């Protein structure tokens, strides 16, 4: 396949960025999207040009490192997958592909397609935990949990922290991300004890870091590679109102 790539290049956080056009002449439909970028980078290095910087690590959809807008969609046009799982078989010969970093104020660009997502960690530092010291836990089966609750908690806990929800939202809201953690713990008896403080601290931190409000458009749910449901946000709201 022949593809025209329009890729956002930006030297560092302060520099101005812009799109640069690259021609790819032998893209195989069997390649993964990131492998296509690897091939481009190999070529660039051979021409002594600076390769495109992008975050990636596990390349199997679980670490949450990768993430970019591809043709206007976080993680590309295929639903429910991360960028590293996107295959080139979803693109057509001759197509022009636009590749950009997450665009959200709380995620400043570091270089090219890499953004700073430490704001997510800061929200988790604020309250994303259950306070139990090592050695202080009771025997595991002394905390029975209804299978249904446990399964639902798991469904919320599969968030990989990639930031696609924020990137998809016109307000750069982090509600889906925060609600996934709040829900996981709210559904488990272990998590109930600190539920009130947790929701307050995490929401407060989220606001402080400049994430916007949720206006219920549902773009986050539609673009989430792990299919985290927007019903988590409803639960977050309930938990939040209960806490005051």
């Amino acid at each position, binding site marked *: 396949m022949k593809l025209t790539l329009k890729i956002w290049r930006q030297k560092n956080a302060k520099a101005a960025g812009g799109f640069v056009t690259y021609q790819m002449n032998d893209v195989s439909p*069997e390649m993964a999207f990131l492998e296509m970028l690897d091939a481009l980078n190999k070529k660039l290095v051979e021409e002594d040009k600076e*390769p495109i910087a992008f975050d990636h690590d596990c390349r199997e959809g679980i670490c949450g490192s990768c993430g970019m807008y591809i043709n206007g969609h976080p993680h590309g046009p295929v639903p429910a997958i991360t960028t590293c799982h996107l295959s080139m078989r979803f693109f057509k010969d001759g197509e022009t592909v636009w590749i950009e970093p997450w665009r959200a104020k709380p995620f400043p660009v570091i270089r090219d397609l890499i953004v700073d*997502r430490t704001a997510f*960690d800061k929200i988790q530092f604020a309250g994303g*935990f259950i306070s139990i010291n*090592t050695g202080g836990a009771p025997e595991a089966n002394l905390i029975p949990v*209804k299978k249904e609750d446990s399964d639902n908690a798991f469904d919320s806990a599969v968030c990989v922290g990639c930031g696609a929800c924020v990137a998809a939202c016109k307000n750069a809201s982090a509600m889906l991300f925060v609600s996934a953690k709040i829900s996981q713990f709210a559904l488990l008896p272990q998590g109930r004890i600190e539920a009130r403080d947790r929701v307050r601290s995490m929401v407060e931190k989220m606001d402080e870091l400049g994430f916007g409000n949720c206006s219920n458009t549902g773009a986050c749910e539609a673009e989430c590679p792990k299919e985290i449901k927007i019903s988590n946000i409803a639960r977050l709201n309930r938990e939040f109102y209960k806490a005051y």
Partner: protein
Amino acid sequence: MAQLNAKIPEGPLAQKWTKYKASVKLVNPANKKKLEIIIVGTGLSGAGAASALGELGYSVKSFCYQDSPRRAHSVAAQGGINAAKNYQNDGDSIYRLFYDMIKGGDYRAREGNVYRAAEVSNQVIDHFTALGVPFARDYGGTLDTRSFGGVQVSRTFYSSGQTGQQCLLGAYSSLNRQIKKGNVTLYPRREMLDLVLIDGKARGIITRNLITGEIERHSAHAVILATGGYGTIYYLSTLAVNSNPSAAWKAHKKGAFFANPSFIQIHPTSVPQLNEFQSKLTLMSESLRNDGRMWVPKTKGDKRPANDIPEDERDYYLERRYPTFGNLVPRDVASRATKERCDAGFGVGETGLAVNLDFRDSIKKLGKKVIASRYGNLFHMYKTITGIDPFEEPMRIYPAGHYTMGGLWVDYELMTTIPGLFAIGESNFSDHGANRLGASSLMQASGDGYFIIPVTINNYLSDEIRTGKISTDRAEFEAAEKDSVERINKLMSIKGKQNASSFHKKLGKVMWDYCGMVRNEEGLKKALVLIEELRKEFWSDLNIPGTEAELNQELEKAGRVADYFEVAELLVTDALNRKESCGAHFREEYQTADGEAMRNDENFSYVAAWEYKGAGEPHILHKEELHFEEVEVKVRSYK
């Protein structure tokens, strides 16, 4: 010459740890705050250790190369985590878990360490459950388990096919709590470039800030490496693309012995390589072998679609060769049996380098819903990658490099041969002998981090309470920083043509072909020649555009690849030295008539700990003889 002392406590096996804990020196809570500990790595072992040591009141500095600790490769573990809870009443016990690991490791691990790993396994499950890790549950609300290879009990706790993710997020949450309290300071996007020794003790590290390119000095009273495995030596592996051996290797060059480097596990079930551009191999969890049956056609070169091949024309080769364990034989055995069938021409798919993993019978028996609840995300992932639906057709799978049993040599206290330098998790060598059993690594990494190092490190730190803060202005830091800068400059100035990955790929192929699932003397010797050739090419034809004073992923990669060459050489040297077949190390010269591994206990019942003697100098071998007091050393059989 340095003597190896494993410091295994005296007394009966089952009481060693209890006795050790009762007699270990402690540090007064008031003094803990004054003592600094560097922990490199935020996987289960590193995040666990940072949390537990932070809780105790030590001042902890935690490093990782990713942007967030939550992305350490522990996150990718799928199948599960073992514990000797015996919730199923199927005869499990700490002793049985210990025994399974010793046997599974083909009698090349230390009894004392393995028993302790089994002993703390139950606490690990209690702790994760309390942290809110959503393990799978039964309808009554209690925890569910499943079976893994190489054992006959059901002791594996799991969260669908994402157990590593859930456990790591649990560990990340406990780390976050300590960060909030100020007991742990986090340094993400940092790569450790060197270890700093002062008066022979580990006192700090040199790092590169991966965003700014700045070279930084960090000091501490002790350093813990929790930097994971080096399975990426094969280029294609189930590890993260950026996983690397560099931190451990730098420590090795500063005096830490490297043990059993050639013991690398090749996992039997990974999505096969589909094309030449491929950058990694995706694991299909071992848990799938609970319900999936591995087979190839009975006729060579049978190219019919799998579903068109009738039952009596299928060769369920694991069930045929190993009737007792069937599809649940350990990984090394399953991988070799698969390779044997493919080499003999019975492989399936375009390349013939694949076999079927078939769920047809289980779906018929249990229904699609049950199978989906057990492996939903794995089936989804397989379909995403290959376009094939495992509910309709068998998966095609092939072995892939996966786990390094070898690593830094440590004693019972998890201290390396450098005083004050500890190694935990996959980065050490201690618990899995020559082959690791499934679901025992999450268990070991978590046990090391949460429950073992927080006890054993006190013995060392109790002598450090009068040391005072260690200044990074000292000459030793200056010298280490200079070395790091010089090496970076050297890499930057080559100005050749090829990128670092191209070299990594070529090296990976050499290692896979000559030092992979099967090895022989001729091939290993050839590998040494090829590695040297490639290394020369690397140092003359590498190109890194850009500068070192900015984010530069090519430079990061190049530094790692430069180390890979050296690691590869030692790995092959170790494989050459070990003239026996044991666990994952299979030397063609040493096998039984029916193709099973032939150990040589008389000459090789030892841990091979290698000492670095300088560039271009041969490594020196130190032997730690293994003594089996509790188990009878037998021929490992799964037939």
